[in-house]
């Protein structure tokens, strides 16, 4: 709970940051957010982004805390298993599952209701969410589902 409260406090601080983000060298271009609204399907920029926290175990609980504190679980479900928004832990990705693609989805939003969190959350906070999601075990994909007993 302490960690979660701390993350929530950080998130609130992040929310109070100026609403225009600036570009950093090697990072994503700036995105403008007057409020948390859908980005309306802006095409992601054609750059390859590198997750600075890839594989970093300490980032996983931090990203998980931000995922809850920013109400991501309100749409994507507790544990990111899916609710009105899609599951983020089933290995299926609508807009690409590479770290950079997931970052794009969070930073710029997606057209069917995913808000843009760029300019609201720091790049680092978003990368830690990406790291958290990518650390979750993906169930094996079994294409057949059967209700018929195969035993005699």
């Amino acid at each position, binding site marked *: 709970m302490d960690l979660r409260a701390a993350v929530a406090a950080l998130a609130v601080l992040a929310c109070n940051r100026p609403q225009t983000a600036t570009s950093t060298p090697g990072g994503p271009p700036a995105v403008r957010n007057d409020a948390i609204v*859908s980005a309306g399907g802006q095409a992601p920029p054609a750059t390859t982004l590198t997750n600075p926290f890839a594989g970093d175990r300490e980032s996983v609980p931090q990203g998980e805390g931000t995922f809850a504190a920013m109400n991501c679980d309100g749409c994507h479900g507790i*544990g990111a298993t899916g609710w*009105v928004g899609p599951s983020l832990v089933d290995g299926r990705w609508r807009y690409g599952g590479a770290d950079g693609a997931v970052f794009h989805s969070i930073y710029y939003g997606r057209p069917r*209701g995913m808000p843009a969190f760029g300019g609201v959350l720091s790049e680092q906070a978003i990368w830690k969410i990406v790291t958290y999601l990518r650390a979750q075990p993906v169930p094996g994909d079994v294409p057949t589902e059967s209700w018929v007993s195969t035993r005699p």
Partner: protein
Amino acid sequence: MRPRRAALFPFLCLLGVPALRAQQAPADGQWTMPGKDYAATRYSALGAITPANAPRLVPVWSFATGVLGGHEGQPLVVDNTMYVVTPYPNVLYAFDLTREGYPLKWKYRPEVNPSAVGTACCDAINRGAFYAEGKIVYNLLDGHTVAVDAATGRELWKTQVADLGQGETTPMAPFVVKHHVFVGPSGGEFGIHGWLKALDLETGRVVWTAYSEGPDSDVMAKPGVFRPFYDKGTDLGLSTWPPDVWRRAGVPVWGWLSYDPALDLIYYGTGNAAPYNPEQRAGDNKWASSVLARRPEDGALVWAYQFTPHENWDFDANAEMILADLTIGGRPRQVLVHFDKNGFAYTIDRRTGEVLVAAPFTTLNWATRVDLASGRPVVDSSKLTGASRGNIKDICPSLEGGKSPASPAAYSPRTGWFYTATNNLCMDYQASRSTHIAGTPYIGANTPYHAGPGGYMGAFIAWDAARGRKVWEIREPYPVWSGSVVTAGGVVFYGTLDGWFKAADATTGRLLWKFKVGSGVVGAPITYRGADGKQYVAVYAGIGGDWFLLSGDVRSDDPADIRPPADFMPDIARHTSQGGMVWIFALP
């Protein structure tokens, strides 16, 4: 699946036949508004289809809407034209019922912001249109109300009523009284500030806005006009909340309205208080989970009654308020009848707001009874929730409701009984602290469901609202999330989540007929007289709505998206998948 007679006294209905006044519409064979008439009875005076001949019903027409997702609501039939509104993207179809194959007269394809799809809490549904003075009026999901010329399909006006950026969406069906169109928002899961707006029918201009919570000036409770039966005082919508919490407290208006022309009052229910963690909003939280009675002209609040004070369980009260005249305790009473998510069915004096009867209509354990003297439920404190209380186990009903507000009941003045889909679901409730961030969910609870006692998850029931008694029930393996229609022929229709459309004898509950419509039914059936004079029955198939939140396998556009919340009924995908169909049935 089999009829179960809790108590069957067919002769009692003769004693209880009510004076038919407000609810008796002329048998014009049309269906011009969501609830059939202002009393929201969903009763049709057509009588050609009877228990004797219903087993011979056959499908005579179908149409794929081209949209997946929950097909809630109902078509309209006006002047031999059927009007169908689809879920997002909210296409309006007008079918010519005078021609072979019912070809389209026109279709209206509005521009709707796709962002609304992810902002709507519970699937991109729409609950239907309202016909008034040559106009089809309905809501787009993205917070706009439109009026379309019923003859030509031409857009007459389009008004933004809700703010997507605050989490407001508008799947509700509008309601029209005289020259006002009434609309409200969804968004109880986003911490909106709930309201009902009146728009001018001719221009779409917003005439007034009445909030669900806040100071009397916002709630439009005026001295001398506001006369509640139980909760007296000023600024109750302010004093029953912590300071400023009411500004982002939910209390949406997304259900159905009804209207009593003699009393000149509109009635509607309000939704849950936000967030789900009640410890963030100490107090009664008025007027969440309440019924409000307003004057349609100026919006003034005349009375209000809160079904679930300090609501702890997401017990929205958006379900319909059906107006009927019943004999209660030997006295004729003008009442409204409401099946609440909290599991109690209420029979209330619609002039004053006095509760006359309140009784459980499904499995219920969060309260023992409703105290009629105070109007308050007697709560079992072991079922109270909150972040500091941990995981509270086995609360009944679940937050899907003892009955879904999206599944409107019907009332037959012939039998004197009410007919409704019900759920037999319970839940565990783990609340957690939630932070309000505009435009994101403001919930703070994890609430897995399980079947209630008996193992079946739903039932379709007949209810005696004068006595607070179940008359008969048809148990179903899955929750029942369809509306219903009952006819002068003595037949009641409903649909099931596993994709059956069924007819039952309104008196006995005997199943008469069923047909597999291809996808689960979450819409409300209607009946009408066709251009050829025959009686027809129409219904949507298309599983979705809250089911969209839970389901894995019925999401045929994302077949691997199997979700743990649905594990209480893992085999639904054996029986249905997503679809979107309009069906019409008739006798051969």
